[in-house]
């Protein structure tokens, strides 16, 4: 029983296909980042210095300048916080190595003040921003439900009228649904194309390179806009279509991790293409060896362990006239070599492992270990796999990347079945946006305190406080085996 991405026959996609939109928001992304970094700087200064301090004044002037520039170009400026994301005028800003601390602080400040939305009108002054940010900084007092109202009152009393504040909106849920549909489409197309490519190669036909490029572009766009849904679909881990879903999953994880490293869009595209094609060499390995349940002979092991270098040769056969997929070739060759290059295949000339190869190695190991395969009837739990990658040096993973990957997927990665201290069972839906709460992910409750199964279940944030005693409402006490309880994780993500 599988969730297999399928193609339906019938009318042409050109007539009835989904229409998507791209482009036009590069300015907002760039200026938005600068604006938020300036706000972060300003928040820090009002915390440390009195308002009339020259440092405070200078940082505020910068904030005013940037907000005016945004207004001049965009005619309006709206900051919205949704989950772990910040939107400027509906454009999601990217969180990466350079800015994750600052963005997280702003998200936390908004959340603590009960603010989901802030519109900035024309004509803001330094004084307006000093007042606003000072109040925002100190808004986390009193009844959480009344904080936004209290903040609004204080701003009015201080005669600051350029900010229009609003609570977190249901728009989040709408956007989440849209993103989920888009993610499903992207995922299904990606698996479909990967299957087509690998089968073409196996049959000695030329695969369609254009399609590969397009699915990777789609994955990159999806990850940049809203990654949670797409990462959630990696839980599908289809047994029958393992080769294809595995390639797509590794691509998704690699691009998501690459985004965290601050790679540009084109660099993510390069990384994604390399990740999607990392196992293309397996198309040259006989299926009976690939799918053998156990006990590979020496020759059979040699055949399988040849797939990295065979991938290089295969990619050469697939290259276009002007395009040589260099990074894909390097990653295909290196992804099993380990960081000390003691893995396979052997090399003769000196080399240094590419960071892209290291990224794909982490993503590959994680997805492979958490999937059921011919020779691995019981997949390992995501949490156990992360632990193993972290503490076992023989795995040869880059430890900094493993750490970054863990902060991407959380201590309990998406798809982990957990038991809460309320005896409810839940599936991890997404890492908690707050960096302080990586052990308190967003989960979907799938059974109540009595053990009654729920579908589709509700999302809860384990970082939420208990209404009466101030502690946490729910806490994970253990990880559970879905097989034991007949739970199919993917049911809750599709």
């Amino acid at each position, binding site marked *: 029983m599988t969730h*297999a991405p399928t193609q339906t026959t019938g009318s042409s996609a050109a007539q009835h296909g989904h229409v*998507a939109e*791209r*482009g036009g928001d590069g300015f907002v992304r760039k200026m938005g980042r600068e604006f938020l970094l300036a706000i972060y700087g300003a928040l820090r200064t009002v915390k440390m210095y009195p308002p009339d301090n020259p440092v405070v004044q200078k940082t505020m002037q910068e904030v005013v300048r940037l907000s005016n520039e945004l207004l001049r170009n965009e005619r309006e400026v709206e900051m919205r916080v949704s989950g772990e994301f910040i939107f400027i005028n509906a454009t999601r800003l990217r969180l990466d190595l350079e800015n994750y601390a600052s963005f997280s602080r702003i998200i936390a400040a908004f959340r603590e003040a009960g603010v989901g939305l802030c519109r900035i009108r024309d004509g803001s002054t330094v004084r307006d921003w000093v007042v606003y940010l000072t109040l925002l900084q100190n808004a986390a007092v009193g009844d959480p439900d009344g904080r936004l109202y209290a903040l609004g009152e204080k701003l009015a009393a201080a005669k600051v009228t350029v900010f229009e504040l609003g609570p977190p909106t249901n728009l989040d849920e709408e956007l989440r649904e849209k993103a989920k549909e888009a993610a499903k489409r992207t995922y299904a197309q990606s698996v479909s194309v990967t299957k087509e490519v690998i089968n073409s190669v196996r049959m000695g036909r030329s695969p369609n390179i254009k399609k590969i490029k397009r699915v990777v572009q789609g994955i990159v766009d999806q990850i940049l806009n809203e990654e949670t849904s797409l990462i959630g679909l990696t839980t599908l881990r289809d047994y029958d279509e393992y080769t294809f879903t595995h390639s797509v999953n590794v691509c998704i994880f690699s691009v998501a991790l690459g985004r965290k490293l601050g790679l540009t869009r084109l660099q993510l595209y390069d990384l994604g293409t390399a990740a999607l094609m990392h196992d293309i060499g397996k198309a040259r390995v006989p299926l009976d060896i690939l799918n053998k349940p156990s006990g590979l002979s020496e020759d059979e092991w040699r055949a399988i362990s040849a797939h990295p270098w065979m991938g290089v040769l295969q990619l050469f056969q697939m290259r276009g006239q002007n395009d040589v997929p260099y990074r894909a070739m390097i990653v295909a060759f290196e992804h099993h070599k380990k960081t000390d290059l003691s893995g396979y295949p052997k090399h*003769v*000339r000196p080399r240094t492992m590419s960071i892209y190869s290291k990224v794909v190695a982490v993503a590959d190991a994680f997805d492979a270990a958490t999937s059921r395969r011919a020779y691995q009837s019981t997949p390992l739990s995501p949490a156990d796999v992360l632990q193993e990658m972290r503490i076992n040096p023989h795995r040869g993973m880059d430890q900094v990347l493993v750490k970054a990957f863990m902060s991407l997927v959380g201590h309990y990665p998406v798809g982990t079945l957990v038991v809460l201290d309320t005896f409810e069972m839940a599936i991890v839906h997404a890492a908690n946006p707050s960096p302080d709460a990586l052990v308190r992910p967003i989960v979907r409750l799938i059974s109540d305190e009595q053990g*009654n199964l729920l579908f589709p279940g509700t999302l809860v944030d384990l970082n939420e406080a208990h209404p009466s005693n101030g502690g946490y409402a729910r806490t994970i006490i253990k990880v559970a085996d879905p097989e034991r309880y007949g739970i199919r994780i993917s049911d809750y993500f599709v």
Partner: protein
Amino acid sequence: MTSPTIASPDNAADDLPEPPCSPQLVEEMLRHLARAIKTHQLYLPNNPIYARAIDSLRAAFAPIWPHTSEIALAVSESDFRWFGRVVMHEAGRSESLPWLFFKDGVRELTMSQGIEDEELVSLLKILQRVRNAAPEEDDLLTLLWEQEFTRLKYRFVDINLDSHASFEIASEPPKDRTIPIVEDIRAEEREKPAEERKSGIVKLEDLDATLYFLDENEIEYLRAAVVAEQTIDMPRNVLAILLDIFEVQENAVVRDEICGILESYMLNLLSGGAYGSVAYLLAETEALSRRPVNIAPLHKQRLLALPTSLSDPKVLSQLLEALDQSETIPPQEELDALFEQLRSGTLGTVLGWLKQAQNAELRTALERAAGRMASANSGDLIKLIGSADPSVAIEAMRRAGELKTAAAVAPLAKVLQQPNVELRQAAAQTLSEIGSAGALRLLETALNDDDRDVRVAAVRAIGIRGHRAALPRVEAVVKGKTVKGADLTEKMAYFEAYGALARDAGIPPLDRLLNRRSFWGRRATPELRACAARALGMIGSADALEVLRRAHNDRDPMVRSAINRAMRERT
């Protein structure tokens, strides 16, 4: 999915929304756009026609922006529509701008104010590239995505991907049932030893919370790794991989495949200008073929054929032509590395290009290559002295002279018999540089050459080298009548040589020429007397200088100048 500005083409005219300005402005802009694409195809950016087309297109946007900040066009097979009105109609597909967008899936195109500033030319490049693209090349959507426009938005259907690919849920959703989780946990608690029974709640301090945060060093490590990644020499890295696979995998089929890849890949690298990578490939294949690696003769032959193929005169000439015409020449080190891999037989081609190459940097690299090849392969160099191509022969002679290749004397003798004066001059010069006994004997015969420059070169060399065997011939010329018919340069050359060869024995006749009068009271011509003074200067002994002193008040300025110069040089 349509935007409010884009009305359905089926709307009646009355139902169409009112545009912010006259559609003719948008029509005009699109006409300029179509023209600019054609101009971009035909002319280089520095052509005035191209510049005018771009300026006109930019100007065509200007009257639109006061009325709206966006131009949103609906795209159909043959039309662009704006606010439901057709603003461009091109039915024929071959040159149609709407079709160019439509065929790759674009259904709506929105240009924002400012697109004409920095993004216009990028858009033109993409449109021109797509117009000429082969079916397997990148399409418009792929290229637009890569460019990441900030002032251009587009809606599209992806006709390459199956939009209907979806998930089938192959089974029913989970049925209502109860999971015995509470019982399981209680059972686990009972089985645990007492000291292990805890509240069961995960404590934060059990986990290293800082583990999940990257510290400054780790962030810096990743940042540096990402930066380093962008500096990797990709072609070289991949070549190393291919060669590693070749070396490690002894399977003949695999090695066949790799040889085929290397052969075609080398051509890709050359046409892409990756000369450093080609040089690396050739150096590595050469080294590999010499290492004690078990390689079948056929594969070794194919590897070694790589540098040989590049050294083929036709192939090399094409490469040099491409380099010469290229706007940007590769770095000198890359060219040097590439030319170092050329086989010895290419010396003729390289020498021939020295004269034709327009590019100074290329000429410099070729000079270095020629020098290296000449010194490593004197046999080839000597053969090229007899080349049918005069420019090659002259360059070969030049290098033989620089290297003082004694073995070149024999072919130079043949060159001295050639009707081509330039060749004979070069031969004389080369023989003088070689300066061996054989060379000097050959130069003696050159004293009778029809060409004055050949004679001058020969006699100068004889004088500089002190080839006394030639003294009688030189003396005969100096004392005879033939010297009177020669020009001053030739006269001077003979007299200087005479001075160098005759030494003190030459003083009396030179003294007579300089100082004595004939029976009729006449003296020799000022030219001859000046030459005699030069010759005495070449002798330079006390007696010679005494003769010069006696003449230093000569009335003729040419003679006086020659005397003064000779005395100056000697004192």
